[in-house]
């Protein structure tokens, strides 16, 4: 375990990556309205280090909105998100990324015109410092850092199994590998929390199994993984805790097997009629 001290807009915030009483990521009374539509209503839960928390629910339940709020894409209408007990209110997305919140996107959003390696190297951005002047003048400190970035990026590519595709153009990779690349890129930021938004969508059974293994390995690194997924097999396999959203509200929380049998959850997915 290592301890890091981060700065955010000049304010020191320490984020300790050691097991503590304070949960890693907390969502407290989070609500979000878009005009007249309530996307999220008073949602609260906590995610612990090294555990996989799955967030499931029918389409439109507010899962991606939840991720966007946690990542800082837009501010909540009320409630807050806390990282190790410190409120993230007012922090823009890039500041949260530097504090340790990493994410992947439903529609991948790779830098298509850059190679796989370069994509992951961008992931190292928050952990490096060389600025315009130092880089343009090729100062020794910048060159050393560049080598380090390169090394780390290769490491993360190997972690997800894409080591051989380092110089392939991201847009040219097959879809399953693109998803893995996105995860590698997010991992390169050395996050405390990893938000995976439907990483299994569009993957075949073989790829999904590999993804499941990867998620378990990532959690084993001490990272709190939040997983939005529709693939119930994947969720059952990797998630220690499952949270169910419906119409923006949390309707169930608990271990996967329990939640699966919860009548409210069944009703949310299948409608009100009884399943004989």
């Amino acid at each position, binding site marked *: 375990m290592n301890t890091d001290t981060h700065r955010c807009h000049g304010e020191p915030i320490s984020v300790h990556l050691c097991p503590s009483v304070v949960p890693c990521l907390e969502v407290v009374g989070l609500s979000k309205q878009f005009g007249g539509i309530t996307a999220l209503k008073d949602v609260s839960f906590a995610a612990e280090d090294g555990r996989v928390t799955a967030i499931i629910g029918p389409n439109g339940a507010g899962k991606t909105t939840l991720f966007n709020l946690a*990542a800082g*894409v837009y501010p909540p209408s009320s409630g807050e998100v806390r990282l190790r007990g410190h409120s993230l209110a007012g922090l*823009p*997305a*890039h500041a949260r*990324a*530097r504090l340790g919140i*990493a*994410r992947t*996107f439903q529609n991948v*959003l*790779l*830098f*298509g*015109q*850059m*190679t796989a390696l*370069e994509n992951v*190297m*961008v*992931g190292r*951005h*928050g952990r*490096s410092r*060389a*600025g*315009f002047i130092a*880089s*343009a*003048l*090729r100062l020794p400190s*910048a060159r050393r*850092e*560049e080598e380090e*970035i390169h090394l780390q990026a290769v490491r993360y590519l190997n972690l997800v199994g894409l080591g*051989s*595709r380092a*110089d*392939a*153009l991201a847009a*040219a990779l097959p879809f399953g590998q693109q998803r893995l690349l996105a995860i590698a*890129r*997010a991992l390169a*930021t050395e996050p405390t929390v990893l938000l995976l938004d439907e990483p299994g969508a569009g993957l075949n059974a073989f790829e999904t199994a590999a993804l499941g293994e990867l998620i378990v390995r990532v959690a084993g690194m001490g990272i709190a993984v939040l997983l939005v997924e529709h693939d119930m097999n994947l969720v059952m396999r990797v998630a220690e805790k499952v949270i169910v959203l419906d119409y923006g509200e949390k309707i169930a929380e608990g271990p996967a097997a329990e939640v699966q049998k919860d009548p409210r959850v069944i009703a949310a997915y299948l409608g009100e009629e009884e399943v004989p």
Partner: protein
Amino acid sequence: MLGVVRRNGLRAYNRSRRRFPATGRWPLALGIALLLALPLAGTYYTSLAIVIGIHTMVAVGLCLLMGYAGQVSLGHAAFYGLGAFTSGILTVRFGVSPWLALLAGAVGCAAIAYATGYPIFSLRGPYLALATLAFGIIVYVLFVEVKELTGGPQGLPGIPPLAVAGFAFDSDLKVYYLVWAACLAVLGFSHNLVRSRPGRALRAVHGNEEAARSLGIDVDAYKVKVFVLSAVYASLAGSLYAHYVTFVSPQPFGFMFSVKLLTMVAVGGLASVWGGIFGATTVTLLSAFLGSFSDLDVVVFGLILIAIMVYMPQGVTRWLLDVRDRRGWTRNHR
């Protein structure tokens, strides 16, 4: 099966290598040799090459802004003119040393770019284009109207040449080496920048802003930084221009020059630093050639822009390379 993977990987690897074309050792050495020897061709070519060098400096800055950060600036001539006029006004009206004036111009343009950058880049697409266009025109109007400083449409004569310890850059030959030394410095600076952490960050911003933010990149700050950098390049070029021609007037710094800059960047390839030389050379030569047919040069530039945007939006150099790639591809595939 493994063989196919290896071949695919190798092709992709080669393709990625070719993304920064013509930067092997010997083309560079050849280029430098050519540059050193060029004045032997006579004063006409020397003076033309000076202008090309100056234009390249501005074009490279715009390349970084448009090609790498993916932002547009339709008023970049304004910074070029601000550099030129700052140098002119400070040296002629206030007796300031030319080097200090050059520095003042660069700092001034950096400050203006910084101040206008955040608000301007909070805009998107056509609004951004419009704002930069308006900026260019406002500055131009100021050049024309603030006659006490700029001399208005008549211009400002009598600008002293740059000098170092008594050695004055007052002949075409001397200015030529000065300008190209500066130009190569700017090119080298930019080349290093592009292949480094900030360069990747810029390309990430261009690729997808939301993803870039999720990786810790302050997108807005980066856009402003590259805007400031491109403004500084333009200002330096403008100052060199002023001390070379020893006379500035508003006329060369209007919308048409911004369009020519756009054409340079478009021809050279939006995302190619070295393409900046190619673009600047092409456009400047074309301009010189068409200068005699004064109305039609405008038409030709417009048509070139249209043609490039329709058929080769990645720029002429990339188009040529792609053609070569495609032919190579079919040969390997057999």
